[in-house]
């Protein structure tokens, strides 16, 4: 535990709320944390696991920036207590690229399509897209828009994001970029 984490835990203990031990897997690594029960999964991912690629926008489930995969299913990490993640398998944006840093096809395609501007929303869009393509490798444009309707972007106007998903579909089917 780092000094920052120790002092945080000391402050949390002083609030009188429950302190819980939670074990789960993050991007393939077994992880155990001791945190106050009110801490959300998103806060624990960012502050205890030090994986700051998961972004927090609204913190009440509207914007989708904090979307991660929980047992392969897209989920809002801000609407889940870390305690509820006991025994679960979590995948964050940091878990998409290969061990040698090679980008996931969805990351590469989104970059190629200029699907980012400020990129605050991008981790959520990418995790939602990975979940969509995992289940439906060849979605229609309408299906892409419907699936991504739970993620907000204030920069791109969405067109380049949808283009990025369509490009990813082509790459993942083995076609040309």
């Amino acid at each position, binding site marked *: 535990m780092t000094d920052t984490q120790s002092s945080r835990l000391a402050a949390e203990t002083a*609030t*009188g*709320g*429950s302190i*819980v031990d939670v074990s789960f897997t993050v991007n393939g690594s077994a992880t155990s944390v001791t945190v*106050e*029960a*009110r801490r*959300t999964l998103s*806060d624990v991912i960012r502050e205890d696991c030090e994986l700051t690629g998961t972004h927090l926008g*609204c*913190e*009440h*489930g*509207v914007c*989708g920036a904090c*979307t991660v995969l*929980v047992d392969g*299913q*897209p*989920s*809002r990490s*801000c*609407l*889940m*207590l870390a*305690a*509820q993640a*006991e025994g679960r398998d979590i995948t964050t944006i940091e878990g998409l690229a290969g061990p040698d840093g090679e980008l996931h096809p969805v990351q590469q395609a989104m970059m190629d399509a200029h699907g980012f501007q400020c990129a605050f929303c991008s981790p959520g869009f990418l995790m*939602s897209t990975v*979940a969509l393509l995992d289940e439906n490798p060849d979605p229609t444009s309408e299906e892409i828009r*419907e*699936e991504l*309707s*739970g993620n907000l972007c204030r920069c791109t106007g969405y067109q380049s994001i949808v283009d990025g998903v369509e490009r990813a579909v082509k790459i993942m089917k083995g076609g040309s970029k």
Partner: protein
Amino acid sequence: MKAPPFIYHRPETLDDALALLAEHGDEAKVLAGGQSLIPLMALRMGRPAHVVDLGAIDGLAEITEADGAVSLGPLVRHEQANRSDVIAQHAPLVAQTMPHVAHRAIRTQGTVLGSIAHGDPAAEMPAVVIATGATLTATSSSGERTIAAAEFFEGYLDTALRSDEILTDVTFPAWPSTAVSSVVEVARRHGDYALVGVVTTLDITDDIVTDAALAYFGAASTAIRVSAAEQSLIGSSPSREAFDAAATIVAAELAPPADIHGSTAYRKHLAGVLTTRGLTAAVDSIGVPA
């Protein structure tokens, strides 16, 4: 946007969960999928001293069918219901509703019974419950009782559930082979809470409407049926004229509360428009000319 501190309980049996509720009562909230409770706590609109998480209890995510009636346990997630063959076959209105409930990343965690117990007047499931006349089972450490749909929703985010009870079952009655239904809504963004929406069911035999339910969400302090409009449809053939007449009654009867997203007048107008749209969509599904 962080929840206030609370004592967290993660019981492994339903009996243990009920004992905790019996002990802590008004001070406790039940946590299932958390998609309503966690934001409420983050916004500090709710400050339970105790949170009883049902997540470690086995056997609460069952979907069963008996004589055509479909029952759901308290940990059935919306997405699980969305993909259930049993629901698709025996509770088509529930299946029709699921894609309207929030977004997939919320449906994967949020539970159907949690949405019902939360009783948000703008949510779809309470309207489905009152439209179908579903039966709700509330369990406490002193036993269980059944509550009729019409008795369940008492006010804004307020239900007949007592603080020591868990909503353990919802049972949708057998779906008549002659019934048709639709769910239509107007929302600012697909998957958001609707400004107004309506769950419509019609039972049609020999081109005559023999039963009707029009259950509105986002239109009052609870999900609400407009019986005068339903009665106006019964006994006649489904037609555009009959639907418009029902819509006029609805727009006159409902007085939806205003908020930043829409005035009362706009929502009344929407309720009328959606009445015709919902009835038309319901009969379109079987090709009855409207």
